[in-house]
Structures are given as C-alpha cells and as structure tokens.
C-alpha cells in the first residue's frame, strides 16, 4: 500500500468518527488530521507508520468523539444507524464459508475471541452499571448524571465494540449452529433492546438533561431507563451463558 493510500485510510477513518460531531469540532479535527497527513506524506513517512498511527489512536478517537458529541443532532442519529448497518454487513460477510473456515481451523481464534468477548462484556456492563444505579436512584446521588456519563460511557462503548466484534468472530466459527439456537436468537433480541434503550436515553431523554442533571430523584421515565438497562444487560449475560447448553 502506498503512503497516499494509507493517508486515504486515515482520512476515511477520521471522517467516520467525526461524522456525528458539532460542525466546528468536526471540521477542525478533519483539517488538523489532513494537515498532519500531508506533512507525513511530504516527509516520506512509510504507509505502515501512517496506518499504525491510525490504529494506535482508535480508542482515543472514539472516546474523544463520544465526549464531545452533541447527542441532540440529527447527524448523530445518522451516524448511529450507519454504524449499525456496517456491523450488520460485516456480520453477514463474516458468516460466509471462507471466513468461517478460517475461524474453525485456527487453534487460537475461538479461544482468543471468547476471552475478548468476556473481557469486553465485563467492561461494557461494569462501566454501564454506575450510570444505571445513578438513574435508578440507588447510588451516586450527589454526582451529576452528565458527569458520571462522560466518565463511564466512553469505556462502556469500548467494551461494547470489543464484545460485538469478538461476538461476530465467534458467530462466524459456526454460523449454522448459532442461527438454529433459539437462545442465540433471544440474546440478539435482548442486545438489540439494550442498545435501543441506551440510544433512547442518550438521544431522547438526555435532551432535557439540564432539567434534572443534578437532581437526587430523577424523573420516572429516566429511572425506568436505568431499571430497563440493568434488567436487559443481566438477561443478556444469562442468555449468553445458556447458549452453550441449548440447541444442537
């Protein structure tokens, strides 16, 4: 790959993670990276160095974009739906025979994916739980919801991405058996509900966050969002464990 092509990858990634951000921040970050890429290519940087700089900064890019994201904009909703579509298409691609064979025939692929799935889930639920406890009114009553969310949601998102990507890899190892397992279908339905519940909180309920951000007792619908979240994530974990004991 040429340095110009590597710069194209970096440019594409920057456009992706800045897509849902306020215009001034989005344009500033894109322009800054564009300038950096131009200097890199002009300086003779090899493509592997450009790609490594992208890869090593992925977590920072994602957590930064979540921190500065204006969740009330329509662009954010488009970005979310677009990301889900990309995940869905990736999932369909992974379940094709050649990719599936790679997963099955490798000694380490499934154990590594399984460990990542577990670690990612622990991070996701572990970072989501403090926010849910706050919404339910069970803990952290003195901490503004926005402050708690800004600390925990980026890490929960990183956990979520690790969980979903490793889950897709596990699915690819044996798509036929997974698809025929009713508990797997149930788990996916619960996952969709949990993601939808999280999205409703951030995109709809949080629009009026200034009204109740520091309140000890939050509006009933916000509390309900917290209860629903805890219920769904626990159900998801239980369903995940039961997959191995159900189906063929």
């Amino acid at each position, binding site marked *: 790959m040429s340095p110009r092509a590597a710069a194209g990858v*970096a440019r594409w990634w*920057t456009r992706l993670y800045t897509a849902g951000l306020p215009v001034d921040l989005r344009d*500033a*970050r894109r*322009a*800054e*990276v*564009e*300038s*950096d890429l*131009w*200097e*890199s290519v*002009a*300086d003779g*940087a090899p493509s592997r*160095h450009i790609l*490594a*700089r*992208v*890869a*090593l*900064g*992925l*977590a*920072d*890019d*994602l*957590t*930064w974009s979540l921190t500065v994201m204006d969740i009330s904009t329509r662009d954010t909703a488009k970005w979310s739906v677009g990301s889900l579509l990309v995940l869905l298409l990736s999932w369909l691609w992974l379940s094709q025979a050649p990719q599936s064979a790679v997963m099955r025939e490798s000694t380490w692929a499934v154990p590594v994916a399984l460990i990542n799935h577990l670690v990612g889930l622990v991070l996701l639920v572990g970072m989501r739980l403090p926010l849910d406890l706050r919404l339910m009114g069970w803990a952290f009553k003195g901490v503004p919801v926005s402050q708690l969310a800004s*600390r925990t949601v980026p890490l929960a998102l990183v956990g979520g991405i690790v969980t979903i990507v490793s889950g897709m890899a596990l699915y690819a190892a044996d798509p036929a058996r997974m698809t025929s397992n009713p508990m797997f279908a149930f788990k996916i339905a619960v996952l969709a509900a949990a993601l939808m519940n999280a999205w409703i909180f951030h995109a709809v309920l949080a629009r009026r966050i200034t009204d109740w951000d520091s309140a000890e007792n939050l509006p009933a619908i916000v509390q309900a969002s917290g209860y629903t979240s805890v219920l769904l994530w626990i159900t998801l974990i239980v369903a995940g464990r039961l997959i191995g004991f159900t189906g063929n």
Partner: protein
Amino acid sequence: MRRKAGSLVPLEIAICSAALALRERGIEQFHGYLIAKELKDASDAKLLTAYGTLYRALGRLEQMGLMTSVWEDPQIPADANRPRRRLYAITPDGQTAVATASAAGQPEAAPLAVPRVSEA
C-alpha cells in the same frame, strides 16, 4: 480515570517539554506533525504518537490553558499548496506546569533541548 486536579499525564508533560525545546530553537509555534516528530526524536520511539492520542492531548492542554492555538492565515497554505495548519504555542502556565512536574519528579519524556528536528 479520574486524575488529580492540575496534574498532567506523561504525554502532556512530554508535549509541553517538546514545545519548550522547539522554542529554544526559535520555533514559537508548531503544528501537530512537527510536535509528533519532536516527541518521537526526544524519546527515541519508532513511531510518531497516534493521531487520536496526539490531538486529544493537545485539546486537553488547550482546555487547561497550557497551550493556545490559532489557524494560520489561509493565504499561506494557498501559496504553499498544502492544507492549512493549526499552530500551537505553549503558554506561561504550560511552562510553569512543566517546571512543577519536573520538581515533583513526574516523568519528562522529551528533554528540553534536542536540536535534531527541523520543521517539516
């Protein structure tokens, strides 16, 4: 991760130190790529700091008042046929923060004077 108010992570200290090193060589303002090269050379690293990590840290430093930034005059990149640069400069508070961090024994990844990098 919550950090103590006013304390800097090693990368932030390194960026401020590199900015001071550039200033000693007469470069008051620097763009992202230049500071990334300065950091790499100062620490003998193989790679430049990742894009996301570098620009996030620069943003934090600016929020803390340790750096300022301005976009260069559009005519300059137009004449040079290149993208516009965001130019950063260390503030007196940034200089103080590096001195404080050094006194407190926090790691300083970039030595103050490393005359090895010219502007790219």
